[in-house]
């Protein structure tokens, strides 16, 4: 049912498209182009001289053990964030989908964290997990766990994962809840009459019918974990201790902004961009093949 609108002349359609095209150009194509251009140059820290080095920056980045460490961190971090944020959000959405007393209150409360800025979220969790003053931090020490995310890399990773998951939970929750509510009640009733118990109904009916939502959220969550968690890591751990929580995006910042190594930082950005484009393409291919509806 597509309606074709035919404009007379060219000016009006161009004028209507211009704002969107301008935004895309200024905020995506231009910086992306700059990054690609920069990644082929070597520049001194003061920006006084630059020379063209071809793919040398890429070679150096890919053979740099600290970059490989960041890549590994990113895999662990993104995997944990996506798995936990999706799993928990699905669990909460299934609970909220039941006809509960006060379900609307419960639902709106769960949506709130999405409105909290990443840095604020980080500070919030910092207060909770701070070893000397944080409630949870002190609690962990009281039960004999030598909790200190400032010294222990694993602890630091756990902390940034928790904060990043908490921040993303609300978004996933909304989508899962909407997905659950779009499953016709009669289909579930038919399954109940066919003899399926609740757990079986979930895994054989609800979960497959949610798969379009799940795949979409997986893409969004991985992108989130790759790029948008910078603020959380920056505020919580600064990538430390000993680069234990330095992800690829954080390393781009460290090398570009702090170390002023623009060429390598740009090369890392380009690699990151390629990774995310590839991930998304693979996922969409999978969506087409595996997701029914």
């Amino acid at each position, binding site marked *: 049912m597509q309606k074709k609108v035919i404009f007379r002349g060219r000016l009006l359609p161009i004028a209507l498209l211009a704002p969107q095209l301008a935004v895309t150009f200024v905020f995506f194509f231009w910086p992306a182009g700059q990054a690609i251009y920069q990644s082929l140059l070597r520049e001194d820290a003061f920006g006084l001289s630059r020379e063209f080095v071809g793919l040398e920056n890429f070679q150096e980045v890919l053979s740099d053990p600290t970059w490989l460490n960041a890549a590994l961190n990113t895999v662990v971090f993104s995997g944990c964030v996506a798995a936990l944020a999706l799993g928990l959000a699905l669990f909460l959405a299934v609970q909220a989908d039941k006809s509960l007393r006060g379900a609307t209150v419960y639902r709106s409360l769960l949506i709130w964290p999405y409105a909290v800025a990443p840095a604020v979220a980080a500070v919030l969790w910092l207060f909770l997990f701070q070893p000397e003053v944080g409630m949870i931090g002190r609690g962990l020490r009281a039960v004999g766990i030598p909790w200190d995310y400032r010294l222990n890399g694993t602890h630091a990773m756990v902390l940034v994962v928790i904060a990043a998951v908490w921040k993303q939970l609300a978004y996933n929750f909304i989508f899962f809840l909407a997905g659950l509510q779009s499953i*016709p009640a*009669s*289909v579930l*009733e*038919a*399954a*109940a*009459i*066919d*003899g*399926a*118990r609740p757990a*079986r109904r979930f895994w*054989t*009916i609800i979960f*497959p*019918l949610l*798969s379009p939502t799940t795949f979409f959220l997986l893409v969004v969550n991985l992108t989130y974990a790759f790029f948008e968690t910078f603020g959380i890591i920056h505020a919580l751990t600064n990538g430390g201790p000993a680069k234990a929580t330095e992800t690829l995006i954080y390393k781009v910042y460290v090398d570009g902004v702090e170390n002023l190594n623009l060429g390598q930082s740009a090369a890392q950005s380009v690699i990151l961009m390629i990774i995310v484009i590839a991930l998304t393409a693979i996922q969409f291919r999978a969506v087409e093949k595996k997701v*029914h*509806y």
Partner: protein
Amino acid sequence: MATLSLRDVRKSFNATPVLHGIDLEVADGELVVIVGASGCGKSTLLRIVAGLETPTSGQVVINNRDVTGLEPADRDIAMVFQNYALYPHMTVFGNMAYGLKIRGLPRAEIEKRVKDAAEILGIGALLERRPKQLSGGQRQRVAMGRAIVREPALFLFDEPLSNLDAKLRVQMRAEIRRLQRRLGVTSLFVTHDQVEAMTLGDRLVVMNAGRPAQVAPPMEIFSRPADTYVAGFIGSPAMNFIPATLEEGGAAARLAKGTVIRFADGPRPGPAGMPLTLGLRPEHVVPGDGPDSVPLSVELIEPLGSETVVHGRGPGGLAITARLPGAFSGAALPVRLPAGHLHVFDAGTGRRLDP
């Protein structure tokens, strides 16, 4: 195979009662149709039998086993939904095999049963398709197939034909009846369509506002409706209702204009002057002039081909519909109200008055 008993089943949603005590016995292999206008509680009743709703009080007994507190899964029933409720992510085979897999039947047995059912329903070639790729009639068949492969004690149908177009509906109606006879499964069928009800049911339950107005075989409901609701609901066009009063001795009724009609089958109990409602089906209204005929001014003529429905108005604004064989044209139509076809109801309670 199975019997079904409902014992004083009541249901209220919050404070609103929707079912006021339903008692029903369904014999083995019988197809009982629950028919009524929307909101009369018929779907709620079916859902209670299925176990999708819990009755506020009363018992549901299948095969002498009280299943009131049991999950739908434990009741040995199958249900066909109005929107078919097929599993969109499974093939036709998957849809039909789902319940059997849960029961843990061996694979060969599942395949045999699904193939057999698909053969009966003529959907053998569609087994690898998904519901999205099927037409409405095919989906309907798959929904039926999913019900019959289970070989349940009881079939429940929740307005399964309402989403089909008119032609397909007539075809599926006949098919459901044939299938139910062939399999001999006790069935409960909910519909708002009186034609479906009349043609399908061994017995009908006509529901009115949460109460069964009449439970009887279709022809008895048609020829001896228990009250004015049933009389008006079953039959198309609807029965004519004519206000009247009872004459002294109960042997006759007096119409508003003074015409007296003697009952053909004997006197009715009741005091003289008791208000009555006389019912006469449109096909029993006879055109003809005479001393006690009613003159109608014709308002609307509906030609149906083999017959013509004439809507007219008598003296005092009395609306009367007549169904005449063949064609009709004209502005006036005198009709007679043959006493032999009159249904007599108490105008106060609406109940049928028999001699």
